[in-house]
């Protein structure tokens, strides 16, 4: 059982000792069920910290801001940042370490276990409660969630309201941590890529119809890019600057500012954007599912990334985010990589 008091105690202690600059965690929001990110500097504020199945966000996203801020400062505070991570988020830290985006000394990882379950899918819960409003969700004793509504407590089996990705989770506990709160539990997942089968089993034309319908919806709000802890490029190929070529434009400028894709949200351009994102996340996506959660048009973005995760596993036997010392997927190779598709 995750002991919240333990987390608070640990957090307050490292803040008091001055071990960390601040702590990124979850706190109750003022609106609705979901919490909001908390940035805690004062040891007194650790009482705000929460950890329950509603903490769906991947907080490692904020390490990007931290890094940007640090590079701008003249005399940066070199102390690490405390961060509360779940199993999936901890793998994001591993990938960031692997890419040397952050150093191990930059973070103090407060790992929390998902207690054999995972986090909630808000939509699933809303359906389940049929109009009743949940006020609070807590981990139950036997792989279930205790949900507090206006009419009292309800127990729901976790499997029924878990987020899709949690049903296919490979690590229910942080794989990298300085302090672990909770137990290292492991639930057996038969097939971590089961959700893909539905699309994969379709004939190619049906698959095309499905994806065209989905990708066509995209309005290019780039919410998926903004929320992704792995999308940290300073400049994205999707943000093509409106570039006017004049007689004075140098060849170098022309070469550097290529308009790879149009900004207009039409199917062909959306496809290029989503392909590029999927390929950039190949071997890096840790399946935190944030892209899909924030999508205002409910595009199953996760299935694109998941597919490449599956191929990485099947073709190259590559697991994402378990070992920060391993070379990344596309910066390494084996002599016997499959080449049956090559003429």
């Amino acid at each position: 059982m995750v002991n919240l008091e333990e987390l608070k105690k640990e957090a307050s202690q490292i803040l008091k000792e001055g071990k960390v600059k601040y702590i990124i965690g979850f706190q109750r929001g003022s609106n609705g069920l979901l919490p909001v990110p908390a940035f805690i500097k004062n040891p007194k504020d650790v009482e705000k910290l929460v950890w329950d199945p509603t903490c769906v966000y991947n907080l490692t996203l904020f390490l990007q801001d931290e890094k940007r801020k640090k590079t701008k400062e003249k005399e940066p505070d070199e102390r690490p940042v405390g961060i509360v991570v779940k199993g999936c988020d901890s793998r994001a830290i591993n990938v960031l370490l692997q890419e040397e985006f952050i150093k191990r000394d930059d973070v103090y990882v407060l790992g929390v276990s998902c207690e054999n379950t995972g986090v909630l899918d808000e939509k699933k819960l809303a359906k389940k409660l049929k109009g009743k409003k949940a006020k609070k969700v807590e981990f139950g004793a036997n792989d279930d969630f205790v949900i507090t509504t206006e009419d009292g407590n309800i127990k729901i089996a976790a499997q029924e309201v878990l987020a899709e990705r949690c049903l296919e989770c490979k690590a229910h506990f942080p794989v990298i941590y300085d302090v672990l709160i909770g137990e290292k539990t492991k639930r057996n997942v038969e097939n971590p890529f089961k959700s893909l089968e539905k699309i994969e089993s379709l004939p190619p034309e049906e698959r095309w119809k499905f994806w065209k319908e989905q990708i066509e919806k995209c309005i290019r709000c780039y919410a998926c890019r903004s929320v992704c802890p792995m999308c940290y490029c300073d400049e994205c190929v999707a943000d093509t600057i409106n570039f006017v070529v004049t007689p004075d434009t140098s060849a170098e400028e022309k070469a550097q500012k290529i308009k790879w894709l149009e900004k207009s949200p039409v199917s062909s351009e959306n496809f290029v954007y989503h392909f590029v994102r999927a390929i950039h996340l190949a071997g890096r996506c840790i399946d935190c599912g944030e892209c899909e959660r924030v999508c205002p048009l409910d595009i199953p973005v996760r299935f694109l990334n998941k597919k490449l995760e599956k191929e990485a596993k099947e073709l190259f036997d590559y697991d994402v985010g378990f070992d920060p010392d391993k070379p990344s997927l596309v910066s390494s190779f084996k002599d016997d990589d499959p080449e049956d598709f090559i003429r």
Partner: protein
Amino acid sequence: MAEEFEPKIVAFLCKWCSSAGSDLAGVSRMQYPPNVIPITVMCSGSVSPLYIFSAFNKGADGVLVSGCHPGDCHYIKGNFYARRRIALVKKLLEYVGLEPERFQMSWISAAEGVKYTKVIKDFVQELKPLGPQKKLRRTQ
């Protein structure tokens, strides 16, 4: 009679092997279909997936990436990286429902002019029944 559909193929050829191979086919006066638009790149490993998506986006009916045979790369291991990356791109394109024949990879050495013509001939043969690529093509 309606004209037969002539596919447009964009071929990314590495400078050291495949491009030299296509040159050999040319100077040896071997016959092969004129449907290819060759683009010489320094190494098959330098072909960004974005080039491939962009080619389809701008109206290519087929894309070919060709490099040196494994072990022959001028940059020692560029084509090994390419092999991995292209495998992922191929899987992704097939996953969204693009015909697998439209995107191909080959190893062609500088001495294999004949193989180059064969690859192109086969590619064109396979693309003809598929018709123009409209799925990823920019419409506006």
